[in-house]
C-alpha cells in the first residue's frame, strides 16, 4: 500500500470507528441514524480502496441511499421514538459492554493466531463492474432473472403486510 492510500485508509477507519461509537452512545435515536449513514458511507470508501468498485457503488446505493432512509422513516413514523419522552439509552450497558469486549477479544485472538492467510490466486479484474455485468448477462442469466422474482416477492409481501397494518 503506498502512502496516500494508506493515509486515506487510516482516516476512513477513524471515521468508521468514531461514527459507529456515536451510533450506540448518542441519546437522540435520530442522530444515531445520521451517524450510521456516515459509518456506512465510510465503509464504501474502504471498498473502493480494495478495488471493489461495484461493491462500493452497491453500498452507497442500497445502504446509504435506501436502508438508512427506511430506518429514518421508521424512527419518524414511530411516535414514541421520535419524541424525547421515553428513554432511548440502553439499560443493559454493562452486559452489552462485556459481550462486546468478549467478542472483540476473541476476534483479535483469532486474527493474532492465524498465520496463513488465504488469498485468491487471481487478482481482481481491473474493470470489475464491466466483468460483473458481462457475467450477469451470460453465465449467470438464470440467477439474474430469479433475483427479479425474489424482489417481486419481497415487494408484494411488504404491500400485503403494510395493508394489514393500516386497515
Amino acid at each position: 500500500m503506498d502512502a496516500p492510500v494508506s493515509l486515506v485508509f487510516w482516516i476512513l477507519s477513524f471515521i468508521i470507528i468514531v461514527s459507529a461509537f456515536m451510533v450506540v452512545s448518542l441519546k437522540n435515536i435520530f442522530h444515531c441514524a445520521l451517524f450510521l449513514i456516515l459509518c456506512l458511507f465510510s465503509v464504501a470508501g474502504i471498498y473502493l480502496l480494495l478495488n471493489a468498485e461495484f461493491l462500493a457503488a452497491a453500498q452507497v446505493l442500497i445502504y446509504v441511499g435506501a436502508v438508512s432512509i427506511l430506518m429514518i422513516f421508521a424512527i419518524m413514523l414511530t411516535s414514541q421514538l421520535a419524541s424525547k419522552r421515553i428513554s432511548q439509552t440502553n439499560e443493559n450497558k454493562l452486559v452489552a459492554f462485556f459481550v462486546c469486549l468478549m467478542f472483540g477479544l476473541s476476534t483479535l485472538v483469532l486474527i493474532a493466531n492465524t498465520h496463513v492467510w488465504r488469498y485468491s490466486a487471481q487478482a481482481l479484474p481491473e474493470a470489475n463492474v464491466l466483468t460483473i455485468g458481462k457475467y450477469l448477462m451470460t453465465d449467470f442469466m438464470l440467477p439474474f432473472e430469479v433475483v427479479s422474482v425474489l424482489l417481486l416477492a419481497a415487494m408484494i409481501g411488504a404491500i400485503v403486510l403494510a395493508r394489514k397494518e393500516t386497515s
Partner: protein
Amino acid sequence: MKGFYVAPYLSILIFIVIGIGLVLFTFFLARLIRPSHPYPAKTINYECAELPIGDSWIQFNPRFYIFALIFVIFDVEAVFLFPWAVAFGQLGLYALIEMVIFILILFYGLYYAWKQGVLKWV
C-alpha cells in the same frame, strides 16, 4: 500500481473535502461578522414566520413507509442496471431482452401496488 485504480476517485474525495470545508467556512465566517443579540423568540422553530403549533418531533403518516419500502426494491433494481449499462456495449440485443424481462417482472410489482391502492394518497 494500487494508486492507479483509486486515482479516478480522487475527484470525488476533493468534492467531499470542498463540500465539508465550504459549510464549515461559511459557518465560521457567519460567526465572525454577525451581531449577537439572543432573545427567546429567536430560538423557537421556524414555521413560515407564524407561531409554531406543537412540537417539531411529530409522528408522520405511516403511509410514507410503504413508499420507502417500494423505493428500496427499485433501488436494488438500479444496482443491477448499473453493471448491465456498463457491459451493454459489448453484449447487444440479447442483454436488452434479458433486462426487459427483469424489469417487466418487477413492473408487475408496481402494477400490483397500484391495483391494491397503496400508491393512492388519502
